[in-house]
């Protein structure tokens, strides 16, 4: 036993906290766990899931998310340092494929990210607003005359899925093929007997993505798949499995998270009808800050894993190279030193520097999509079903919030209203034509703002 072993053992022992995000009771105990960790050990060692550090406080997350001594790498083939990427525990069902750019370090990360940026910037996303509004309109039209809706299955699952496929350059009518595996993969606990079946659905989805990649190489059509299909990094064509990982990340990031944010926000607004009315009336001044506050409070992506890449010290705590670390965006978002009254939703909150899109170079590349899609869905609901009431009996949260803090169902009733246009299938057909004709899925660099003018 060396001095080093004693020192790091000591650091771990003095800061131990039994932390299990995947435990079924975690969701109900989030607040007391957060408060306890903030008070006693905002940087804690937990022996769960193979042993890992947990950064729970704002200062801790800020430091380590931006630290040069921290790696996102997932070394699948063991040719580098054997690091295990961003999932704690390592997700076996996805073991053949890396988690895209989120599991890359520099300089590789920047090379791939630069290919994707022009499709996902604020300017790029703004071109899609009329498209988004049409999908929202049609989804609501399917239910508006009945006075009943499942905000998850019949709105919040649909719009992000359709838009993500359109931005990828995949025919939007395929959204139903992607929908179940993506959501099921996220809400099923890691030890569930359903995992093999979901693995199968995922493989089918992976196959469809690879097929699209091949098709786009043969017959180019604009979109993120095209950007990756023609990518060269360091003069070389990346492996198809690498590209599959990136595509899977765009889909995984694009689907579930925005759905989760929307469901939680709509539920909260139903429980606080006065605030809902205020938000609707004063949306010009409140919509942005309200969106950021819902992001902070509901943190759809509660955290990400890292590996310490060099021995380092924080606040007298020794962390060793190879140690695993969980960056808890969700707990940092409740740090009272950054967010006064952190467990209250304040739709006008100022200085809302929340961590929900991560921090540092891996800031969620879909953040502009998320904000825009969420706001368009919210505004349409406020306008067309202003009196909606969520039914607690019809509200189903994810059993496990280890990966995404989401909801499976959110049933609501409302005063019926008139349809405004065609149903979803017809609308998607029309939108596919428009997308293709107007080149909506091209990068912003292709035509700049002209694409917007043509729309």
């Amino acid at each position, binding site marked *: 036993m060396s001095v080093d072993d004693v020192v790091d053992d000591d650091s771990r022992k003095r800061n131990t906290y039994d932390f299990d995000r995947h435990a079924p009771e975690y969701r109900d105990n989030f607040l007391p766990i957060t408060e306890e960790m903030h008070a006693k050990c905002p940087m804690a060692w937990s022996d769960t899931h193979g042993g890992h550090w947990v950064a729970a406080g704002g200062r801790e997350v*800020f430091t380590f998310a*931006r630290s040069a001594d921290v790696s996102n790498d997932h070394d699948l083939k063991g040719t580098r340092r054997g690091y295990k990427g961003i999932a704690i525990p390592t997700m076996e069902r996805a073991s053949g494929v890396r988690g895209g750019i989120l599991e890359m370090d520099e300089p590789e990360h920047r090379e791939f990210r630069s290919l994707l*940026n*022009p499709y996902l*910037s*604020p*300017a*790029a996303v703004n071109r899609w607003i009329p498209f988004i509004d049409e999908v929202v309109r049609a989804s609501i039209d399917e239910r508006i005359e009945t006075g009943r809706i499942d905000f998850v299955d019949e709105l919040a699952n649909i719009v992000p899925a359709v838009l993500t496929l359109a931005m990828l350059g995949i025919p939007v009518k395929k959204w139903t093929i992607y929908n179940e595996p993506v959501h099921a993969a996220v809400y099923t606990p890691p030890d569930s007997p359903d995992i093999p079946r979901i693995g199968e659905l995922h493989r089918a989805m992976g196959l469809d993505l690879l097929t699209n990649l091949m098709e786009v190489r043969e017959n180019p059509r604009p979109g993120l798949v095209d950007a990756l299909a023609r990518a060269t990094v360091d003069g070389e064509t990346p492996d198809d499995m690498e590209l599959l990982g990136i595509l899977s990340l765009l889909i995984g990031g694009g689907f579930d998270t925005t759905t989760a944010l929307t469901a939680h926000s709509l539920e909260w607004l139903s429980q606080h009808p006065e605030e809902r009315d205020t938000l609707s009336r004063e949306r010009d001044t409140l919509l*942005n*800050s309200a969106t*950021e506050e819902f992001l902070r409070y509901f943190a759809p992506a509660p955290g990400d894993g890292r590996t310490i890449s060099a021995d380092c010290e924080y606040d007298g705590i020794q962390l060793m190279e190879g140690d695993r670390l969980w960056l808890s965006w969700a707990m940092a978002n409740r740090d009272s030193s950054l967010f006064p009254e952190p467990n209250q939703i304040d739709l006008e909150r*100022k*200085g*809302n*520097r*929340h*961590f929900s*899109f991560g*921090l*540092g*170079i891996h*800031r969620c590349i879909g*953040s*502009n999509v998320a*904000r825009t899609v969420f706001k368009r869905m919210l505004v349409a609901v406020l306008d067309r079903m202003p009196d909606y009431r969520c039914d607690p009996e019809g509200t189903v949260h994810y059993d496990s919030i280890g990966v995404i803090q989401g909801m499976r169902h959110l049933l609501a009733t409302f005063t019926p209203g008139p349809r405004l246009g065609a149903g979803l299938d017809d609308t998607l057909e029309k939108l596919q034509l428009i997308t293709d004709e107007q080149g909506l899925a091209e990068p*912003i*660099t292709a035509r*700049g*703002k002209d694409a917007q003018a043509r729309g």
Partner: protein
Amino acid sequence: MEVKVDPERCQGHTLCAMAAPDVFELSDIDGHASAVNEAVSAEHEEKVREAAHSCPEQAISLF
């Protein structure tokens, strides 16, 4: 008041442009921010303080 966005720290969260849209412009390509004009007029001061306070990366400096 003068304002500067540190391009090494900015990661394109866009919160500054929400707080002070006349003061910060965002790159078409990646949404990273820069000050339209480093000199901040009196009418914009409060919003610029809010922008600096809101930046998750703490990339905005005020002089």
